[in-house]
């Protein structure tokens, strides 16, 4: 019995020891683990890059002394040509590409719906300012748009500008012509589809796209 008592006491002591050892190990291990996280090394490199996007801007302005494209044209007769002058400016910071022009006529009349009898548009550029009094270019002339009917210009039509770089300023001569025609008015009665006595307001839209996007290394 005594022996059994001693054994019981020894058993209880071992259990207590085991508990202590386990607890110590748990606490100590956790402490060791936490200590290893908070003490790891970190390296950071920083830089600042400024990125600026370009701008694309297009304006058309009547040249001084010209009605440009905003002043009414007096009554046109077959064979008449009215030259108007304006400055087309690529005022953005980006070079442009694929410039086009489009005309919308309102109301729709033979002037803009008949490709033969209707208005014909020609656009020329001059490397220097046009001599407006005579319509002469004393520099180099560029055919920006060969004679094209207003009908065809109902859709965007390519222009050949001498320069499309940022800041390019192009003096243009816009020639608006009413072609000669064989129309006959008999006893005061106008024929069907006449070009006479018509009024159409022309809305002009010049458009340019950005230059081709590029990938650069450097």
């Amino acid at each position, binding site marked *: 019995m005594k022996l059994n008592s001693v054994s019981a006491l020894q058993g209880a002591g071992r259990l207590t020891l085991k508990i202590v050892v386990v607890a110590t190990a748990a606490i100590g291990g956790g402490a060791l683990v936490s200590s290893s996280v908070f003490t790891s090394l970190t390296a950071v490199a920083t830089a600042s890059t400024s990125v600026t996007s370009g701008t694309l801007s297009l304006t058309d302005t009547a040249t001084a002394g010209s009605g440009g494209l*905003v002043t*009414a044209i007096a*009554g*046109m007769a*077959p*064979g008449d040509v*009215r030259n108007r002058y304006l400055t087309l400016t690529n005022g953005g910071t980006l070079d442009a590409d694929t410039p086009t022009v489009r005309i919308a006529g309102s109301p729709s009349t033979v002037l803009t719906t008949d490709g033969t009898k209707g208005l014909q548009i020609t656009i020329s550029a001059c490397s220097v300012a046009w001599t407006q009094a005579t*319509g002469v270019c004393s520099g180099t002339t560029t055919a920006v748009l060969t004679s094209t009917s207003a009908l065809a210009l109902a859709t965007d039509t390519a222009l050949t500008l001498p320069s499309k770089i940022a800041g390019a300023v192009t003096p243009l001569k816009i020639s608006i012509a009413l072609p000669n025609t064989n129309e006959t008015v008999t006893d005061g009665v106008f024929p069907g589809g006449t070009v006479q*006595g018509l009024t159409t*307001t022309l809305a002009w839209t010049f458009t340019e796209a950005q230059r081709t996007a590029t990938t650069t290394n450097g």
Partner: protein
Amino acid sequence: MKTNRLALVAVLVGAIGLAPTGLPRAQAGVSATSTSSVLQAPTQKYAAVAGASPSATATSAYAIPAFTTSCSVSNVTTGSNNSPRTTINMGSVTGYVVGMKPSATGIPATALITSINTGAKTITVSVATTANISNNTAITGAGCWQQYFSVNNIQATALSSFGVQQSFSSISPDTITMRRCSGTWTESTGACSGSITTIVSGTATSAITTASIALSASTGTARLRLLATKSGISVTISVAIRLATDIAAGTTTNS
């Protein structure tokens, strides 16, 4: 079923999301536009009509009233006019007009006066004489009927000329002649204060013939004379303005 639809939608969304982004540059990039407008004032109008008076504006062919006015005149010859000949020397040609039927011994009945030389005082006939005509022989110009009409510009644009057509059933061998006077007609007698020009003459409907007479804008008018060698003819006059012919050439202006 609903599950299938959802699956289809999902597939489409996925396909769109995965689609290549190779849009044209013009659509994918930026573009700039500049717009302006111009008012196109009315294009010109051109028209002229024929009518009874300078104020006529009716837009239809003009039916000439009956040729009721007869004109007849007599002058005497001068010098010797041996036959055969077509040019006859006259002491005066006053009152004669082309188209008249000259009547005298030696002049065939079918002959008409075809021209008059007021300076030389001669008339030319269409058929040669068949007998000598002695000095101081009266030649009566007869068989002429006349009527007048006006061609009026009814638009606000000047005309440099106009086309005119006289329409009637054939009256061959008789004729109708349209004439202008550079001055003023005395319509009761057919006299002209200036020179006379024949615009068109024929036995039946004419082609559209150019009358080189300028008509000023809005108020321009020309008084023309129709001379017939017989009466009772129904004639209509049409006026044509041909843009390729009757208007001033186009102009180029810089403004």
